[in-house]
């Protein structure tokens, strides 16, 4: 049971959160201008690194805020100072 540091509520049990996948995948400015391949890349392709990974979390059972955190996927450690509201 990870202890995930919600930037608002402080550390809470993993069970209070929903995972939001890779962070910093922005909705394209103008989807209509994208090729099918570019659009498919936005829809379906995500990184899957072993090690540091910036990802999104939502504190669903708490303040319902989304935030980003950098987690090491090999050790599950969430880097202090790398949690942003």
């Amino acid at each position, binding site marked *: 049971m990870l202890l995930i540091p919600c930037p*608002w*509520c*402080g550390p*809470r049990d993993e*069970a*209070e959160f929903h995972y939001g996948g890779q962070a910093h995948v922005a909705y394209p400015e103008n989807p209509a201008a994208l090729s099918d391949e570019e659009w498919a890349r936005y829809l379906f392709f995500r990184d899957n690194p072993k090690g540091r990974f910036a990802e999104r979390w939502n504190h669903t*059972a708490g*303040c319902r*805020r989304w935030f980003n955190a950098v987690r090491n996927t090999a050790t599950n450690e969430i880097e202090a100072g790398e949690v942003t*509201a």
Partner: protein
Amino acid sequence: MAERLSPLARFTPVSADDLRIAEIPFLTQINLRVDPKSRAAADIGVALGAPLPTEPGTCTSADADVLWMGPDEWLVVGARGHDLEATIRAAAGTAHVGITDVSAQRTVVAVDGPRSRDLLAHGCALDLHPRVFGPGRCAQTMLARAQVVLAAREDDGFRVFVRSSFAGYLADWLLDAAAEYLPEGTVTSR
């Protein structure tokens, strides 16, 4: 007109010396969304008798209890029949705020007595030690398998705000766990 019916109207309260569980029905509850730095937030604080609490997980009590729910969200709780919505709306004026009457969305279960922390610890993963979660603290979290808003009061008292549809489940769960602290046979086993 027919009687109003609260979600736990059929719940038999627990009233032991060191543990008491009872519903506080029909409180007025307003969900408030507003930018905490805005003029409207300050004006609403004045109207409610205390500034909106901006420290996460805290609660203020003046004309109404104001519970921090998120960085721009509060639950304002007043007595039955208290027209808080009008008060807040008047204070907010034409500013961009979200004011929603949610009085029937959740009911409130009071858990009181020296055993209250022990009881809640059976289903709540938060550290409820008085030094960590003393009077004036509140949190949205899980109690058993229900989402709740938990508020700590003086004298080992807690207020558990639970969605009305989950209230029956949570009351059953509380009774089941409370049996750990009550003489055998006090609580009817289901």
